[in-house]
């Protein structure tokens, strides 16, 4: 069962080309579909790229290709097994994407918290006790 969690900034990783057998040509570039049956996994990542497209391509499909790009990563069978287990994903690409995004978020979090710890920035907030006493209607 999938986790009931909502992840912000996470795009739906399901490809509109699931099950299709061909790729797509946009502005003379050929975008092949995910290679199946090997551990060469196409990872979808955000990267806006200006593209002029042919008018017969479905706009939803286009949006997917314009706002993402694919990279190939090589992992061993053992690593892939671990990745699928850790992410509880069934699809290889989605699992690697999830793992990469989670690692990125953790890295960003650490960087920002390191800055806070080093005193580079902080927030002018009242203590939590004051934040939570702003509407004590039933306390006299």
């Amino acid at each position, binding site marked *: 069962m999938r986790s009931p969690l909502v992840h912000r900034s996470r795009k739906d990783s399901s490809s509109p080309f699931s099950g299709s057998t061909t790729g797509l040509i946009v502005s003379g570039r050929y975008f092949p579909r995910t290679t199946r049956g090997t551990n060469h996994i196409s990872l979808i990542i955000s990267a806006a790229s200006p593209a002029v497209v042919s008018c017969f391509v479905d706009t939803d499909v286009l949006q997917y290709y314009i706002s993402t790009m694919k990279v190939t990563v090589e992992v061993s069978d053992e690593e892939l097994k671990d990745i699928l287990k850790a992410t509880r994903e069934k699809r290889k690409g989605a699992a690697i994407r999830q793992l990469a995004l989670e690692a990125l978020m953790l890295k960003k979090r650490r960087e920002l918290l390191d800055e806070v710890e080093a005193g580079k920035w902080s927030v002018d907030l009242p203590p*939590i006790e004051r934040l939570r006493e702003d*509407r004590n209607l039933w306390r006299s």
Partner: protein
Amino acid sequence: MAVIIDSSVWVDCVRTGSPEPVRRQTKAIIMDPDSFLCEPVLFELLRAVPKRDRARTEALVATVPILSTPADLWTSARILGQKCIDAGSLPPGIDLLIAQIGLHHKVPITTFDSHFQQIAKVSSLQVNFLMRAK
């Protein structure tokens, strides 16, 4: 194991003038890869952040996944509050909302706020109640 980090931990982490040991303690808690936010915590934290600090604070909380808000949150939090008042305690409304999300997802709450212990007495809420480091 997933855990909701309460606003009390977030506030003590980023608040100007927060003591060094508390800042270290809260940083370690928030850095846990299994830590989660929920909408009431986001609301409570971000509604009080001044404009000049807003972008960085929002960037920080954006690195933490959010637990979904159950559709019956208000009703179930009200019932939870009524259980508390029947047992003689009156936790703040926002605590009830956070606690109810924890109960819904069966996820414990890490907090410095003792009100959650009162809620735990009348429910199955799991609470990691912490003392501030000195």
